[in-house]
């Protein structure tokens, strides 16, 4: 994937994502100063966005060490390319796209073929959501505990987790996800649905079985 080609292209702002990334006080000035190489401005931009970028990496990767490495890479890329930011979309939206594309590149380098991966399209029997469509369970109806959901998301198979985080948490549209993951829009919709089914299944299980080994390291 051409990271720069994707991450630096400022498409028409996506209403959902833009709405969730409103401008931050002092950010515009920091961006302009950073374009001129102002170190303090870089520091400020890092302080403003480090938590979002790191949490996004952590959710996508499920690993603290890799998430920190990718956070570092994302900000290094940001500092290199900030001159190409034209302000056509929210800065944080632009930064999130950059981060997502870096993480996807990283995963591909590791050999994870994302949505086209067999494991993702055809996850193992254990990973695939069960077809218990007809069984009613009132445990979830009405509310889902946020912490429990975060734990369940962390235990999703990587492909499911990726699409779920990008769509339901980050607010990307299916066509955007399809472009980033190099898959069809239909595939993105299908993966999201399977991810939600799997989460429903995980959330209905007793606490201990929805908590993966080493969860403390990946919980956010």
């Amino acid at each position, binding site marked *: 994937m051409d990271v720069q080609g994707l991450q630096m292209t400022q498409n028409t702002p996506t209403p959902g994502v833009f709405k969730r990334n409103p401008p931050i006080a002092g950010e515009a000035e920091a961006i302009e100063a950073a374009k001129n190489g102002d170190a303090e401005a870089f520091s400020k931009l890092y302080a403003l966005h480090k938590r979002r970028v*790191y949490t996004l990496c*952590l959710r996508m990767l499920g690993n603290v060490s890799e998430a920190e490495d990718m956070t570092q890479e994302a900000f290094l890329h940001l500092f290199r390319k900030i001159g190409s930011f034209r302000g056509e979309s929210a800065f944080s939206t632009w930064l999130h796209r950059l981060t997502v594309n870096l993480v996807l590149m990283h995963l591909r380098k590791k050999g994870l073929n994302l949505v086209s991966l067999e494991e993702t399209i055809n996850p193992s029997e254990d990973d695939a959501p069960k077809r218990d469509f007809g069984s009613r369970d009132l445990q979830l109806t009405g509310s889902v505990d946020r912490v429990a959901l975060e734990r369940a998301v962390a235990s999703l198979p990587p492909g499911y987790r990726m699409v779920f985080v990008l769509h339901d948490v980050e607010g990307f549209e299916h066509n955007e996800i399809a472009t980033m993951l190099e898959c069809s829009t239909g595939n993105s919709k299908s993966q999201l649905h399977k991810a939600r089914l799997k989460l429903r299944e995980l959330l209905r299980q007793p606490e201990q079985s929805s908590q993966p080994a080493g969860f403390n390291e990946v919980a956010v």
Partner: protein
Amino acid sequence: MTDSNFPDFDTMTPADFEQYLPEFFANGDGHVSTDPRLQKFLKNNPDCAALVRDLEAIADQARSLFELTEQPSDAVWTGIQDKLRHPAPEDDDLSIPQTV
């Protein structure tokens, strides 16, 4: 996707509903339970309605995770500063801030 791509809402079976559920969710505002075309079906198929409620609850709560963030360790910023001071050969195009 238009209605012509969907099965007949009056004769739809639970299996049909399951097959088209990803599209139902992807259309409109993502809330299948309020889709007027599906009200009769959901009323007659409580298990399907329960599934929809669960999936909507998951999707709704997922949005709140966006605000739940974690702090990276100080090592990340230290690493960024180091890399800016000592760029690798492949980082030649790096715009180095003056005093980082």
